[in-house]
């Protein structure tokens, strides 16, 4: 299943998804990220994980679900077109494992709308860190 990660066009250190846990193509995908104190965002000091990087990790999870469904045979160029209704909850900290879940709402060959959520691991109460009503992704015209 980790073969799916190669579909992401993102490279180090922007590849923020570490492992795909489960996938039901065209329906939903679960993945995890390990928040590390060695990430560039902590170059100046340790603290809560930046909200927008947590959002980016969930967006990458959503992109994986769409790309898996498209049966792309390599990295595909996907850009973020829009985000609607993103609400942040508990802050993730270095050492946390967070679990992302993306659900496909609708898709065409060029555009997809997904919903998603990110929760802290069970050891941290499994509490919500982020919920997003709509992530809109677009494939770049080539």
């Amino acid at each position, binding site marked *: 299943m980790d073969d799916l990660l190669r579909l992401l066009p993102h490279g180090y250190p*922007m590849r923020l998804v570490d492992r795909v846990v489960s996938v039901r193509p065209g329906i939903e995908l679960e993945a995890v990220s390990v928040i590390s104190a060695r990430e560039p965002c902590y*170059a100046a000091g340790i603290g809560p994980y930046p909200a927008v*990087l947590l959002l980016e990790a969930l*967006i990458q999870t959503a992109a994986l679900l769409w790309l898996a469904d498209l049966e792309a045979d390599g990295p595909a160029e996907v*850009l*973020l*077109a829009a985000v*609607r209704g993103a609400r942040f909850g508990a802050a993730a900290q270095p050492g946390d494992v967070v679990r992302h879940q993306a659900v496909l709402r609708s898709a065409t060959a060029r555009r997809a709308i997904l919903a998603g959520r990110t929760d802290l691991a069970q050891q941290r109460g499994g509490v919500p860190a982020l919920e997003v009503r709509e992530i809109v992704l677009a494939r770049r015209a080539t």
Partner: protein
Amino acid sequence: MTTFLRAVDSLAVRDGGAAATAVKRIVADDPYLVGHFPGEPIYPGVFLVESARQAVAGLLGGPVTLVAVVEARFAAPLRPGDVALLDVKRVPEQSPSPGVIRARVVALDSIGARVGHCVVDVRAVHDG
């Protein structure tokens, strides 16, 4: 409060504190750009949201934490060398909940074309 990204280079408050204009010059040295994407750096859409958050902090005069992204739309990619001009306004007529401030941020490129916009909810952070 440290930030991981210099997402606003300069900011000027105007209209008696109701609005501000911020500038962000995209540089290849911005963190994470080497991986977004390898060989073709593009300022990530979520970083434009971070620019918006930092611009709202500048408008309000203190650090803020992101509570919600009501909406964010990205119309065109920003690359190293590009300049984003952010117009920030409070949306006082919509108060999401006590202590939460809503702001609207429109981002233009150097020739005035819209590259994106977002509506964010933030909460002031009181350090210490």
